[in-house]
């Protein structure tokens, strides 16, 4: 397999804080890749750099052979990378179907048909006439997924698709990703729900403090000491290791 999406040595700082440091991540074509790491490890920042929402200070992003570093978000989307956001970005006062048609305002019959197909696929077609603001949080995530799929991107980036979603919808989301992947779609997923990530992904990359600490299949990652240490955090300098033994 070859990498369809690749970041190479990406560096990004906000003020004095290094959010990403020589970050190299590869997503094979036709795979479901996971990106995990403790809070603040740089996962969403990497998504933002890939999709043009943040500019890399150094390093590059490639889609296939094309270098797409610092290409603006609309171009990245047109080139075939769709993404969802950690906090859903829907238009609450538009209907579900209208949300789907925002990018094709002429309302062509073909666009409507395609939009309805996607809503059916994610299982919320029954709500197409409802205001998006009335959807549950999980349903909003499904709407965002449907919205991204309309453009038929080659790679789909999902930022915490299972975050704050109830268990049955988490399973629905996982099933839809599996079906899309079986049909050839490539995914890169940021997610804190370990069961979801480990059950779904072919390969998982772990970030800590903006750098890759490990990458490999879930079975390897979940027993990697470096990964656990990243999650448990660093000792403080000069920390007393055994406070309960003090008098």
């Amino acid at each position, binding site marked *: 397999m070859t990498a369809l999406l690749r970041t190479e040595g990406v560096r990004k700082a906000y003020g004095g804080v290094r959010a990403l440091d020589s970050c190299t991540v590869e997503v094979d074509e036709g795979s479901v890749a996971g990106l995990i790491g403790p809070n603040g490890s740089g996962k969403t920042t990497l998504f933002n750099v890939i999709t043009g929402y943040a500019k890399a200070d150094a390093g590059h992003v490639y889609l296939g052979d094309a270098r797409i570093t610092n290409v603006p978000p609309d171009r990245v989307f047109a080139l075939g990378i769709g993404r969802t956001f950690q906090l859903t970005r829907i238009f609450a006062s538009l209907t579900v179907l209208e949300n789907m048609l925002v990018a094709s305002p002429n309302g062509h019959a073909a666009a409507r048909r395609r939009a309805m197909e996607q809503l059916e696929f994610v299982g919320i077609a029954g709500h197409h006439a409802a205001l998006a603001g009335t959807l549950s949080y999980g349903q909003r995530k499904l709407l965002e997924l449907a919205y991204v799929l309309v453009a038929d991107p080659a790679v789909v980036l999902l930022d915490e698709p299972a975050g704050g979603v109830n268990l049955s919808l988490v399973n629905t989301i996982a099933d839809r990703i599996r079906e899309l992947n079986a049909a050839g779609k490539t995914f890169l997923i940021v997610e804190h729900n*370990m069961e979801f990530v480990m059950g779904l992904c072919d390969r998982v990359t772990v970030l800590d403090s903006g750098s890759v600490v490990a990458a490999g299949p879930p079975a390897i990652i*979940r027993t990697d000491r470096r990964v656990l240490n990243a999650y448990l955090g660093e000792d403080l300098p000069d*920390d007393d290791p055994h406070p309960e033994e003090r008098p």
Partner: protein
Amino acid sequence: MTEAGARPRPVLEITDLVAGYGGGDVLRGVTLEVPPAGITCVVGPNGAGKSTLLSAVSGLLRPRLGSIVLNGDDITGLPPRQVLRRGVVQVPQNHSLFRDMTVRENIELGGYILGDRVLTAQRAATVLGMFPDIAGWSGKKAGSLSGGQQRLVEFARALMLEPRLLLLDEPSMGLAPRVLRTVFDAIRQMSAAGVTILLVEQNARAGLRLSSRGVVMESGRVRLSGTGREVLENPEIGALYLGGAVRAD
């Protein structure tokens, strides 16, 4: 007084607590105790319910089932103001100082419900004596302080009520590594002064090392508990964070 050899009564006893927001339960039957005059540290992966637990204790979130007992009094479902009056003070995760007020004014506001200017001034003097660094900034606008400095002022403000139980929600969140030391030292100092602390911390290693008791939550339940060291060295902690089996260093 407790009988010789008997365990002192816990400051906080939480039993089978179930609570959540809107649709689902985040806490699914939490049982834990906070012994007096120590630090009890709750760690666990994202979404485990750690912050929700603190919200339930401080009254910000009304539990659906279960009980919360403070020094023998059932405080389950009491509104935050009444929980505060009983001596439970929470320092929230996000910075919560009034940015345009001075540090001293912010600290004095911590004594607002005392309704007594003289007592408030006495307490402020005591608190500032405990954190000499803060005394040097007392005339500054709180918004001009660094994140770590603001955290210390938030601690000082919380001490104005001489809390019987201090709830700290991820005090290290968003702080640079070099500042963590200062913040953790301040927590240790408050504990040494006799304050009972229930600490929720994302930096599990540093939090557990600091604490007399450790608790690991996962999916809304307590999965491990013991001394901070026992918890940190328990091989199951890997499974709880990563769904695999791995020992921490």
